[in-house]
């Protein structure tokens, strides 16, 4: 089964790959297979496995989307050095389809994790904290905002 790869106008090579077909599917498949992996390694209940996946997803995506700034190569002469990956994507335009998808995924994970753990503490508290931080970080109003100077420039 073939898909067409239309060329984009995004010059930022760090975020341009997200506009090609197959990214959303890969993302969801990675989450599903990591749930299976956690289940097989830790022999825990499905709910605990989803909680672990949700919290690991929170750590990894917070670090790569909202903490690390700049690009992993030097060809663009550092024009994006002050922007996190989330601020670079789609050229800074807010509320595009990609951004909406990336905001929905942690919320869906949260719902699955809290449902499969029957809304028990302490998993519920940790999950809620994680999804709260994730969703607030992705608000359009938070574009280029550094609260209390955390992760600001020197």
């Amino acid at each position, binding site marked *: *089964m*073939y*898909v*067409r*790869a*239309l*060329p*984009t*106008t*995004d*010059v930022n*090579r760090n975020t*341009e*790959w997200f506009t*090609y*077909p*197959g*990214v959303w*599917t*890969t993302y969801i*498949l*990675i989450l599903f297979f990591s749930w299976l992996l956690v289940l097989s390694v830790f022999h825990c209940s499905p709910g605990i496995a989803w909680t672990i996946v949700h919290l690991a997803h929170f750590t990894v995506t917070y670090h790569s989307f909202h903490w*690390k*700034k*700049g*690009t*992993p*190569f*030097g*060809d663009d*002469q*550092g024009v994006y*050095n002050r922007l996190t990956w989330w601020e670079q994507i789609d050229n800074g335009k807010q509320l595009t389809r990609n951004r909406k998808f990336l905001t929905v995924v942690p919320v869906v994970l949260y719902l699955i994790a809290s449902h499969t753990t029957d809304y028990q503490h302490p998993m519920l508290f940790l999950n809620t904290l994680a999804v709260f931080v994730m969703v607030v970080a992705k608000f359009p109003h938070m574009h280029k905002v550094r609260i209390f100077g955390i992760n600001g420039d020197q």
Partner: protein
Amino acid sequence: MITIPYLTAVSTYFSYGLLFAFGQLRDFFRRFIDWWLTTNLHGYAPICLGHEDFYIRRLYHRIQDCFERPISSAPDAWFDVVERYSNDNNKTFKRTTKTSRCLNLGSYNYLGFGSFDEYCTPRVIESLKKFSASTCSSRVDAGTTFVHAELEECVTRFVGKPAAVVFGMGYATNSAIIPVLIGKGGLIISDSLNHSSIVNGARGSGATIRVFQHNTPSHLERVLREQIADGQPRTHRPWKKIIVVVEGIYSMEGEICHLPEVVAICKKYKAYVYLDEAHSIGAIGKTGKGICELLGVDTADVDVMMGTFTKSFGSCGGYIAGSKELVQYLKHQCPAHLYATSIPTPSAQQIISAIKVILGEDGSNRGAQKLARIRENSNFFRAELQKMGFEVLGDNDSPVMPIMLYNPAKIPAFSRECLRQKVAVVVVGFPATPLLLARARICISASHSREDLIRALKVISKVGDLSGIKYFPAEPKKIEQTKNDIKLD
């Protein structure tokens, strides 16, 4: 238009994710180990900001033996590749004295001027003896010989413009000319896949840059209308100047620009056209005069025509051709003309001789033969590759053909296996190409004979089967079967 199998796209993303994750893991442990080691560089700022060297250290270094291979002969159809070995996992290489004779599918040797030529080389040697290897000066001081003047006149005759100026380096031509042509308050609209020399020149000029979808004139019109209506950012005053930058043949795609539509749109909205013919001059068109001849565009409609001499003419340097006023302005303002050393005289002589051969002024028809041969070779090679089931980009008649690889593991697999079978190819990956679309780029030359091409096809087919890059079904060989039937009857 690139057609990817969906499973390949998903597996490519997953592979890059895995490579990225392993790179991060190694960096994490490296930070621990470095914390314990003492260093006497306290108080110094780090050389690399953030993680901008991450890609080079963790992804590029793993397959570094596929790039920068040294060669030890002229870049003809067959050349000698120096063998190297590495003791520390591809971080550093040691050259051996052994070389292997490989078929050259990577050099931009479109017309075969990259090696000994019976007309050009004696004249170049004569000019080397008379003028020596360098002019040791910039053009305005003492670096203009009558060969330079003859070269500029030759270029104007070849390209079809009133005047031309020649520089010593093709990359520097773009990056030094664009800042002179346009400044703050101007608008540059460039194709999204333009070469990095154009991107550098545009960034250095201070003008606002907008990008339009690759080779899509309708999107160019939309961007132009939007920008003209909007005006300059914040003040909304009208733009001082608008330049649209396109290339003749895009070096990573092999596609030919839709020049007639672009020129029509620019005429309608009164924007200037800057055409970079680095790969197309001398290689396409009936008499080799480039994309304007191929597509029937009047050269007077293109305002600035830029090109390089590295590809079809077997030399170095670049030129800008335009109206007499434009060239006079450039000669007075451009720093590459005023301060950079002029093109070495033997190289200039090589270009003059090559142009004479192409135009047939040396008294033979070798130029026309070369042009016919490269067109034949390119079309034959591309058709055969497509029949085998490879995904090949580029239009017909274009001598550049990228074969899509996609997966990051297939990049070194293809390159190394081809080298083992004595075929040298160039592979390109991220960030020169988009993440998904890694490719092996093949450049056909007029000096490749039919046997060379058939041999290359056999090797590429075998390596393609081993690496699994035949993404399309191969066409069955129907014609030969019917011929056999007729013979039996």
